[in-house]
């Protein structure tokens, strides 16, 4: 039987990184996710697994240290919260442009600006629509439990390497701070330098004799060639959309109404479903696990079967735009959310369903 632990979401990310065989972590403290760097420093994995942990001078430096390590074919990551992630957008654009894999964890807090340290989901646009400059996407996973915070570290790296593209765990203060039961894995060995050299010809692992040197760059001054780079990246994204959409459905079989929610909002909606069904409202939940690629197809299919959908987000309404696109105006779709760090109560969610969707013809 696997080992059971009671852990905070933030600690689970750190523990998963060590046990998954991550090579390097570079980060800068920011609430509400500083426990990740603290846990890593306390665990001191270097003598045990060889994993490097370094506190950088800024988030700008962190993401560029990640670039340097990722370009060597190593599994490297950073974590931060909203204002710090904003600082990383330059680096993320370069990493996506240079087609490098890495993992970034965003434990979202309320904005704009310095905002609040309380939970929020207001970074959906930034995470799923690009964030930095240029045509690129992040592969975005939205954990809604501490177990998923743990599991998605490995999944995030697998997807990042599959598509040679940065992956992001988009969590929030609730999932970062809550303690839940977690099944942890045994320690996996890190990749050897020989394995990396053999498997990733794109990585700077030292020039091979009689072969061209490896250049990792996002620069292409020739427009025709830059267009080819963009087309290649976009083709990769179409593959990702085809193969790696993930979602969970709860109580959708007989549902007349659907909550669409991710992360901690999905947890609140589960409670709202319990309360709603006690009142006789047939409501279910579609929980996107990948926010990009977004579960457009399943939402389209559901839109032929149900009467309305309520997108529940801790924001002024961001994901709701993707739900509206997916359902093609076939049914009523509304948004309900609190922001500024306020977590909506399950009762508020039920009331919003009743007033905005069921009653709001």
């Amino acid at each position, binding site marked *: 039987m696997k080992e059971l632990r009671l852990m905070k979401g933030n600690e689970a990310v750190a523990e998963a990184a060590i046990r998954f065989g991550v090579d390097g972590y570079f980060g800068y403290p920011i609430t509400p996710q500083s426990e990740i760097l603290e846990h890593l420093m306390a665990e001191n994995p270097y003598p045990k697994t060889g994993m490097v942990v370094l506190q950088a001078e800024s988030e700008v430096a962190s993401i*560029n240290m990640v670039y*340097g390590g990722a370009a*060597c074919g190593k599994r490297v990551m950073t974590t931060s919260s909203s204002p710090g992630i904003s600082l990383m957008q330059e680096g993320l654009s370069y990493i996506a442009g240079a087609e490098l894999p890495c993992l970034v964890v965003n434990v979202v807090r309320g904005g704009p600006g310095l905002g609040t340290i309380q939970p929020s989901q207001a970074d959906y646009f930034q995470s799923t629509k690009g964030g930095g400059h240029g045509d690129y996407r992040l592969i975005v996973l939205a954990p809604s439990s501490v177990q998923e915070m743990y599991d998605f570290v490995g999944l995030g790296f697998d997807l990042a390497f599959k598509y040679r593209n940065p992956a992001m765990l988009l969590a929030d203060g609730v999932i970062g701070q809550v303690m839940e039961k977690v099944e942890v894995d045994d320690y996996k060995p890190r990749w050897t330098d020989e394995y990396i050299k053999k498997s990733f010809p794109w990585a*700077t692992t030292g*020039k091979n004799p009689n072969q061209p040197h490896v250049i990792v760059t996002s620069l292409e001054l020739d427009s025709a060639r830059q267009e080819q780079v963009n087309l290649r990246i976009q083709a990769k994204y179409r593959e990702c959309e085809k193969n790696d959409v993930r979602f969970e459905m709860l109580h959708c079989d007989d549902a007349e109404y659907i909550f669409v929610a991710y992360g901690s909002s999905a947890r609140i909606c589960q409670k709202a479903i319990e309360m709603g069904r006690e009142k006789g409202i047939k409501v279910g939940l579609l929980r996107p696990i990948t926010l990009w690629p977004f579960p457009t197809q399943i939402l389209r299919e559901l839109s032929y079967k149900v009467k309305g959908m309520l997108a529940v987000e801790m924001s002024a309404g961001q994901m709701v735009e993707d739900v509206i696109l997916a359902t093609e105006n076939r049914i009523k779709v509304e948004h309900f959310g609190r922001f500024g760090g306020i977590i909506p109560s399950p009762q508020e969610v039920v009331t919003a369903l009743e007033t905005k969707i069921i009653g709001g013809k």
Partner: protein
Amino acid sequence: MNESIIKPENLVYRRTPVLTDNVMHYCPGCGHGTIHRLIAEVIEEMGIQEQTIGVAPVGCSVLAYNYLDVDIQEAAHGRAPALATGIKRLKPDFFVFSYQGDGDLAAIGTAETIHACNRGENITMIFVNNGIYGMTGGQMAPTTLEGMKTSTSPYGRDIKMMGNPLKITELLAQLPGTIYVTRQAVYKPALVRKCKTAIRKAFENQRLNKGTSFVEVVSNCNSGWKLPPVEANKWLEENMLPMYPLGDIKDVK
């Protein structure tokens, strides 16, 4: 030329194989080509071509990766020391160097520069200072001299309004993380030889694993300075060197 017809005793110069065959885009008279060659020769002579990873900057030498025949990464503007940190930490047995200009290293990347040096990252940092932004068309740099005309200081750098030229090399020498900090130039053959010795030492230091080695090379910018090469070199000697004097600033034995 067929090398086989050259008698070894008559060979006075040959191109190092650590430079690629690509034709450099640098302006005639520019120092970058010479500095690239010195780095390449040092890598060849140390026999470390397969164990070296470089980091190129944003600026005139943005395409350095096309000329230096080692595995190499292109950084965002100013971030080369952070990339080099990531590389060296994860591949400590490799020789890692960054190559940056004055705007890259001493303006937008000042934080990354200072903190990499302060941590004593076991890397070699090459800093080419020509007191101007060459690639973007001759704008004022952090190292632009007082009164010097650039496209963004068309009436000369006014210290009161635009601040002082930044002697970042002296500043870095104050940090306990640096073990070798030197200022060199390549506008005369004798200085070229000296500069090569300094670069060699800065690479050899990585074997000692004691801290950061930093080589500034005061260079010219004929296009930006709007001077023909010979006059530019004269201008460099008369104006740049009094502000940026040559020699070792720090050498921890």
